[in-house]
């Protein structure tokens, strides 16, 4: 049975059923449903909910819960996520699993409160200092908000890495039918957590390695882990891509508009398909390259002025043409604008 809920609420339910122990957050639009909903829900479940004094305190509370192996999350929107970057870098260095949700809004600065995709670089390139990555998941429906939140803790614990759900104000606020089909699962056993040095040697969790060569060794270890994730965890969705001459790359809410534009193009006998990256990091570079080799043309659609297109171009590696259309500042591109672009590409008139 399906229920009509907002994307933000679906996400909360996914996190709760996967064993969320604690939530720490700070008010910011358009993600306020998350903290409002969890303030009631976590109380009923006798779990931890704290409205922190700042975004910085909230993410550091998550860090604290994470060192003890507890499943913990925070959520925010673009300006708040910028404030969290220092601690995210620490968590990458300390190898802590946790869930960070960015319900993106328009930027730069205070921007506005409507949905946007302008934090792509910050999310996938490591928004804080240091050589690090985190797993970035991009849902495009309320159902996926639920499912990805449910999966993210397993993924985070499997690799000891922070996971970000990079969504936006539109998916967060949109009300859609969601099937709450997941069940509770047993806790993963972890042998690195801090739970008191009883019958074992004391443990410490840190990101400081001042002795000669130690930091380099730590970085090499992290890079090996990232390679493993890149090998095993890439996810993407294909839509009418098999016979397509033009491949559109879009994620999140943009991919929903693209699907409509593709339907419009197919009616007009233009063979267009969609490749939707679900994991923005690790990015589905190999899949994109294999399409590029078959001499297809590419169009990247984003709700910004061109961020993911850089990764698409790196994947394509110059062997075919990559076009871009986007709209930023909280505006949403329409299917007709995308269709017009597809039409021009089809007629080689770009």
């Amino acid at each position: 049975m399906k229920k009509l809920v907002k994307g933000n609420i679906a996400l909360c339910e996914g996190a709760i059923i996967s064993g969320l122990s604690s939530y720490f957050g700070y008010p910011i639009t358009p993600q306020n449903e998350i903290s409002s909903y969890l303030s009631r829900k976590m109380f009923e479940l006798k779990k931890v909910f704290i409205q922190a004094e700042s975004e910085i305190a909230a993410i550091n509370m998550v860090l604290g819960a994470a060192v003890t192996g507890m499943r913990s999350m925070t959520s925010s929107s673009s300006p708040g996520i910028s404030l969290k970057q220092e601690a995210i870098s620490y968590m990458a260095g300390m190898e802590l699993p946790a869930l960070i949700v960015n319900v993106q809004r328009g930027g730069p600065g205070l921007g506005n409160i409507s949905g946007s995709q302008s934090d792509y670089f910050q999310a996938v390139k490591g928004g804080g200092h240091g050589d690090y990555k985190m797993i970035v998941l991009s849902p495009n429906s309320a159902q996926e908000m639920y499912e990805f939140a449910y999966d993210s803790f397993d993924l985070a614990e499997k690799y000891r890495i922070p996971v970000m759900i990079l969504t936006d104000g539109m998916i967060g606020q949109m009300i859609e039918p969601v099937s709450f089909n997941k069940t509770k699962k047993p806790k993963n056993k972890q042998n690195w957590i801090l739970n008191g040095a009883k019958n074992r040697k004391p443990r410490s969790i840190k990101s400081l390695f001042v002795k000669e060569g130690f930091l380099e060794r730590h970085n090499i270890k992290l890079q090996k882990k990232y390679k493993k994730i890149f090998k095993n965890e890439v996810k993407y969705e294909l839509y009418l891509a098999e016979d397509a001459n033009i491949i559109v790359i879009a994620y999140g809410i943009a991919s929903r508009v693209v699907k409509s534009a593709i339907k419009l193009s197919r009616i007009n006998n233009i063979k267009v398909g969609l490749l939707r990256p679900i994991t923005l990091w690790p990015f589905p570079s190999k899949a994109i390259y294999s399409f590029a080799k078959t001499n297809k043309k590419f169009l990247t659609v984003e709700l910004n002025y061109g961020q993911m297109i850089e990764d698409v171009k790196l994947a394509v590696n110059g062997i075919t043409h990559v076009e871009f259309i986007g709209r930023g500042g909280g505006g949403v591109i329409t299917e007709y604008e995308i269709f017009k672009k597809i039409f021009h590409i089809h007629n080689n008139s770009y």
Partner: protein
Amino acid sequence: MLLQNMKYLKKYFIFIIILIKMKKIILSRPKSLNNVVFSYCPGCGHGIIHRLVSECIDELSIREKTIAVTPVGCAVFGYDYFNFDVTEAPHGRPPAVATGIKRTNPDKFVFTYQGDGDISAIGIAETIHAANRSENISIIFVNNTVYGMTGGQMAPTTLAGQITATTPFGRNLKNEGFPIKLCELLSVLDGTVYLERVAIHNPKNIINAKKAIKRAFQCQIDQKGFSLIEIVSNCPVNWNMSPVDSMKWIEDKLIKTFPLKIFKDKI
């Protein structure tokens, strides 16, 4: 005079020899402190404070359920010196990190160990709000009036006129403001349960400091709420003084600005 001393020493040695023969241990390294070389400078107060904290944890038998949070600064290396679980935290954020640990693990003993820059400059918001929520954690705040690890820059607690790496002409109150008195500041919050300022410049004060730390720890064990012990300490290297002079300076100058007393006791 010398003869008298010799006499005293002789008695003392005989006493020790008797104890050794009885195989009675009168003093040893606390179990909570590792047998390693500390990176602290000669004469630094951190060594004394580490020992006091460790003795208290041993005496309260809470070593096996302790999770400590170390700051950014000289004491970041606490994870190598303490013989219990320790996590690092970003600069100024230990009270938030400790909040996350304690709220999700209320059965554990959680304390932070922070310096003046960490707790009263970059992390003052986290400190005030953890205190205001009356988080059931304990904070050991080491006030030596300078940023020690980065080379002795001015801290919020630097005294008026005190020369530091960034106040070469002495702290100018018009330009840099006044020394922050954290215990006084926190004492007005309803959430704080136990606040005391102690010092470690002589044996009498060291004994007092230990009592205060133990009381703060007991406060958490009894689930009473937020406790903070400010320990006025020294930094001979950055103060440009001998260890002995630095202890004298605490007595003559520091505790005039930072009076030693119990600021709050709701236990």
